């Protein structure tokens, strides 16, 4: 078999090689503009970020500093990890990411199950549920800030009607609830995260649910399975793949998220995450080297977490 098929394939390759060469050239021509922009503006900056993190470079010196003649130093890493708030910030970022991701996935699953079967007004409900996700983040954070405003926000108006004291939801680091110390502002930020991104999970899960073969559930029904049993033993197992992917995507994006926390609280009241601290180093203290070092640390932590995830938790999406 082998001895006859090999020369045959060689022959074919030679015959089509002119065509293949043309195809190869065309492929490169078509890809080149996009590839150059992406390489130049993503791959190159990422590499250069490493160089920046190894030099003492401040914003005011930018116009005259020589980017390539420098004594490499690890001082930036020492400076950003040396501040007292460093480890608490990393831990906070982790908590915020895990809780925000879990909440958005949970709400997304719930929403998908609710609108799975058609009912009157379903498309309106579905459209409305996309609002948190598609509206500009600046607008929705402003609405949340207004709703939670301690003096004239609607949440406090209603609390007051119930005879409860006003609460500065986004301005208070902690709050005692039934003897527990609740990190109040951080909790609100996590709730926002769940609210804003559940539509993303919802759309993926709904698409998956609607692609299910109906026979499985029908068979379970014939066997006398109740609604909750169908959910646990038929529906949920089929969603494992999509959950793995969603968790991964949302975890990465939430871990690197800057806008939401910055716009809601500015990083005050115990909500500062690593990205907000990076921008503080860059804009507030005009210390570019430190900002670059901290962003590398952020990326490094993310890579470690992803390795752990892929090693122990990830499940390939089947079908």
């Amino acid at each position, binding site marked *: 078999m082998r001895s006859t098929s090999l020369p045959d394939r060689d022959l074919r390759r030679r015959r089509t090689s002119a065509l293949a060469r043309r*195809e*190869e050239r*065309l*492929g*490169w021509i078509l*890809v080149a*503009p*996009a*590839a150059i*922009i*992406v390489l*130049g*503006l*993503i*791959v190159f*900056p*990422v590499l*250069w970020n490493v160089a*920046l993190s190894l030099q003492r*470079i401040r*914003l005011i010196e930018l116009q005259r500093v020589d980017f390539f003649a420098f004594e490499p130093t690890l001082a930036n890493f020492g400076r950003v990890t040396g501040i007292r708030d460093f480890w608490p910030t990393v831990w906070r970022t982790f908590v915020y990411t895990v809780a925000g991701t879990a909440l958005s996935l949970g709400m997304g699953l*719930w929403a998908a199950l*609710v609108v799975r079967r058609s009912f009157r007004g379903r498309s309106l409900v579905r459209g*409305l549920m*996309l*609002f*948190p*996700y*598609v509206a*500009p*983040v*600046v*607008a929705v954070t*402003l*609405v*949340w800030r*207004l709703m939670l405003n301690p*003096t*004239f926000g*609607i949440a406090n108006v209603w609390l007051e009607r119930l005879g409860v004291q006003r609460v500065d939801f986004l301005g208070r680091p902690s709050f005692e609830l039934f003897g527990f110390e609740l990190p109040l502002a951080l909790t609100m930020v996590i709730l926002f995260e769940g609210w804003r991104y559940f539509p*993303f999970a919802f*759309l*993926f899960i709904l*698409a998956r649910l609607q692609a299910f073969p109906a026979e499985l559930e029908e068979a379970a029904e014939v066997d006398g399975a109740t*609604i*909750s049993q169908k959910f646990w033993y038929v529906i949920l197992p089929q969603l494992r793949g999509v959950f793995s992917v969603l968790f991964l995507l949302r975890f*990465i*994006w939430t871990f690197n998220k*800057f*806008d939401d926390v910055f*716009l809601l609280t500015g990083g005050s009241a115990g909500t500062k995450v690593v990205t907000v601290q990076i*921008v503080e180093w*860059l*804009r507030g203290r005009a210390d570019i080297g430190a*900002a*670059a070092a901290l*962003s590398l640390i*952020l*990326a490094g932590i*993310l890579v470690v977490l992803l390795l752990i995830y892929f090693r122990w938790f990830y499940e390939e999406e089947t079908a």
Partner: protein
Amino acid sequence: MTRAVFEQRLFGTLKWLSVVFFVVVTGFPLLYMVSLSFKKMSELLVEPGQFLPTLADLTSLETYRAVLRPTAAGGQGFVLFIRNSVLLALVTVIVTTTLAVFSAYAAARLRFRGKRAISSGILLVYLFPAIVIAIPLFVLFTRFGLRNLYGLVVVYLAQTIPVALYMLRSHFQTIPSSLEEAGLIDGLNRFGVIRRITLPLSAPAIAAVALYVFMIAWNEFLLAFLFIVDKPALWTLPLGLQQLNSIEVPTTVLMAGSVIISVPVIVLFFVAERFLTEGLTAGGVKG
């Protein structure tokens, strides 16, 4: 009552409670935003529980005029931000979609060396944190005086091309290649095939991608904040709105600004919900 009947009743009720919950949770902030955008700040301060606007509020449009009026006339100069945002978003959409169509076609259809690397590279880049590339670009653009709308367009291209490429590539892979081969046999060259066969078949997908790119560019905050915050004449809508928030502009005027910035994306989504939803789940738009 058997367990099956009990569960049927329980989940039947819970379902309707859940529908109400989701409608309130997503609809109320929207209602609150729109309502307060018509109110005067003084009314809100006096009666914060009365957020629904009266007929007089609805017709006066006081807050909208205040937010749109140029700064020279005592307003907030939103018209300028609208102009900047529209310009930035449109250029990004046109360039990104054009480049992505060609490169996605190549990545889906043609055989060439390095194709595999490009395909997996896209995914990697697409997941990459914006903050890590923002710092070196900030340094570079400051040095070369590129911290303006032109610079920002280029950065937005780098942010949106991977998403657009990824979505379009998955779409092109679903078009049967026999259609294109028929075109090639009938004497079309590759560009003819793309123009006469692939593009017409992909019009809805390309429109979906274009709308997503528009949404990303229109909503973007971090990079605009880093690059042009010190140049008020260049502020985009999100940046302008955030900056107004930090300088004691009446909250209801800010709500009018929020409505103005939200309307285009919400309208686009409601008009094209169905195929946008499909596009989103195919590509997983970053956010």
